[in-house]
């Protein structure tokens, strides 16, 4: 990694750059009733000179049409891939838990677009889309879901524990909030070495309640670490709403407790998310952590096995109507960026990519039992326990 001395921003020097560039994005389409209107009755005035809590209102500046098409294509890839994963699960090719990014495509695409290739990402278990958007080959992602040796984690992680050194996806964690201290530590290492990469750490809304959330944000802010904490607020833990788990359901406001810059953005607009995340990344790169709340919706249940009975039929209708892939596609078509033929071609291309990924995964072998003990320790050590359950402790072993 390039080692650059970084100018440390003096926290007492007044408003940051981020305050100047208001990342105000109007939510496109109807605003879901469950989300409190950002900025409606809350003061946008920072409580101290050092932190900014911004609301999103103004429309975002547009980017190139190629970039817009890319957003759509990326969202489509995530959508179709996740659908294929759901199908594979029902075919018993994927086991365990399988949490999908259905409905969150815009957020995923927008966030990842803001990262440099050398920036690090820590995420939770709802990570397939993030893996794809970090540039990891869909074949390897699907193979990992199938638990095969060609998977991203060699079949050792599965849906929840993907990891790729080259693409800097540092997991994939099943413990809610477990990734926050890790992300903080990774940022610590970057700071320790004087490098200018940042760490992005995504999590769900439920994570804002766990102790590690508080400890990590506190340490990051205290030690001026280059980390962006992103709360993907889809309003639900599994079936528990944010209102039922958070005393302060406007999650971005928690940044103020640590004098941390924070913002909230509409997660249905990839452009808006991209801009918001870019701002956050710049702040972090200057040596100050950031808390970004991205408001989205889950299209389906918590995982593939959750039928989401806690939702009404009416709500399901509404969700379908607000499907970000459909609505963004419609918007691009309305703006003349895409036409039906383009979309058809994209669908075909994506369909092939996804089908190839599934075929690749199905043909990749499972890890051999001989490798069972290969990843217990990095440094070899005597008297390591390498015993299979049926083997006696002494006598014939292995």
């Amino acid at each position, binding site marked *: 990694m390039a080692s650059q001395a970084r100018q440390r921003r003096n926290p007492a020097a007044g408003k940051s750059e981020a305050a100047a560039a208001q990342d105000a994005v109007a939510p496109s389409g109807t605003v879901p009733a469950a989300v409190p209107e950002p900025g409606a009755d809350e003061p946008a005035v920072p409580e101290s000179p050092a932190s900014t809590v911004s609301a999103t209102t103004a429309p975002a500046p547009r980017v190139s049409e190629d970039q817009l098409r890319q957003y759509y294509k990326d969202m489509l890839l995530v959508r179709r891939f996740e659908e294929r994963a759901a199908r594979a699960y029902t075919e018993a090719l994927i086991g365990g838990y399988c949490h999908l990014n259905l409905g969150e495509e815009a957020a995923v695409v927008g966030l990842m677009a803001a990262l440099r290739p050398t920036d690090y990402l820590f995420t939770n278990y709802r990570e397939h889309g993030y893996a794809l958007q970090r540039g990891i080959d869909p074949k390897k992602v699907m193979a990992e879901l199938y638990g095969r040796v060609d998977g991203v984690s060699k079949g050792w992680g599965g849906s929840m524990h993907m*990891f790729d050194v080259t693409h800097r996806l540092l997991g994939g964690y099943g413990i809610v909030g477990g990734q926050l201290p*890790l992300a903080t530590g990774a940022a610590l290492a970057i700071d320790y070495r004087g490098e200018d990469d940042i760490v992005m750490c995504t999590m769900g809304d439920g994570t804002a309640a766990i*102790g590690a959330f508080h400890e990590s944000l506190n*340490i990051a802010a*205290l030690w001026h670490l280059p980390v962006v904490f992103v709360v993907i607020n889809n309003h639900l833990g599994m079936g528990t709403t944010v209102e039922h788990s958070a005393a302060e359901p406007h999650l971005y406001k928690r940044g103020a407790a640590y004098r941390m810059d924070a913002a909230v953005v509409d997660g249905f607009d990839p452009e808006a998310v991209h801009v918001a995340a870019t701002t956050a990344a710049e702040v972090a790169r200057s040596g100050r952590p950031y808390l970004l709340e991205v408001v989205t919706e889950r299209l389906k249940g918590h995982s593939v096995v959750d039928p989401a009975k806690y939702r009404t039929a009416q709500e399901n209708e509404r969700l379908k109507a607000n499907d970000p892939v459909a609505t963004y596609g419609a918007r691009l078509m309305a703006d003349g960026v895409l036409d039906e033929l383009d979309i058809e071609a994209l669908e075909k291309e994506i369909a092939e990519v996804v089908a190839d990924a599934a075929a690749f995964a199905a043909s990749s072998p499972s890890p051999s039992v001989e490798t069972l003990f290969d990843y217990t320790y990095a*440094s070899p050590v005597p008297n390591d326990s390498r015993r299979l359950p049926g083997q006696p402790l002494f006598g014939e072993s292995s």
Partner: protein
Amino acid sequence: MTIMTYRQALHDTLRNEMLRDDSVFLMGEEIGVFEGSYKITAGLLSEFGPKRVRDTPIAEEGFTGAAVGAAMLGLRPVVEIMTINFSLLALDQIVNHAAKIYGMFGGQAKVPLVIRTPGGGGQQLGATHSQNIELYYAFVPGMKVVAPSTPADAKALLLAAIRDDDPVLFLENLALYNTKGDVPDADIPAEIGRAAVTRPGRDLTLIGYSRMAHVAAEVAAQLATTEGIDIEVIDLRSLRPLDRETIVESVRKTHAAVVLEDDWLTYGIGAEIAASISDGAFDYLDAPVRRVAMAEVPMPYAKPLETAALPSRYDVITAIRQTLAAVGYRTSSQASTVSGASTVGASQ
């Protein structure tokens, strides 16, 4: 060779490793300005500065997890958790993350982390400050757990732990910090996963670790002098991996074993040792394996209660005598000269 305290050996080793390798840095509560609650890190903040000697907020999960994250990026953090009791706050980051990351991701990320923490009770610190829960970490695949009982081993095992690419729980002990011993001047790391026969013998195998290895050595020396009993003492030094070979080889020779531990008896460290002996030295046992452990109560504050709960030298000697009697051993002097005073710890 230099004679120094266990504390000094730790201090010097930390310092030398930090001088040798820029990626080694320290984190923990009160290790900098306060110079460490047990003064292990005294002087290091002023020498190395706040980047490399970091005082943390009271957030064991947060700073231990941060150490894991930093280790994933290639740094070599040495975290101090003030006492092992507080490690429970970081249990998730240690067990679910530090120990699992290498395996869970198919070997793509190492976690070269050291967690230093003392166990031990006996200073009337009460129930939540007097536990010995190293077992929780020795239980977990992916963790390494070492427990030096002498200043020399403190140095050698700490060198090994810092240079090892896996997460290592380095178990210290409050009662051992002031003990003195010879320490080699050269920086030679020990081999993790190996026990040591610190006193060869023929009549009985006495197994302990940390403070209890110290007690074992003293008791064996005493009984040799007063009664001519020839006890073989094993200092485990490493709880995970456990050196079963050394233990079993010894018991095959002596035919009797007593295990000493500061933790609670049921499901404690000694349970695994006894099971391993029964498995590997079954045909060589002339008496059941005895374990001497702490009474299974939350540690009370009142001194007589605390003393009663802790395993003492007297308890150790009693267990030894009973085991020797069970194998029909006749000592030259049947007078039980039991020294109640212990040079180590407050247990009498």
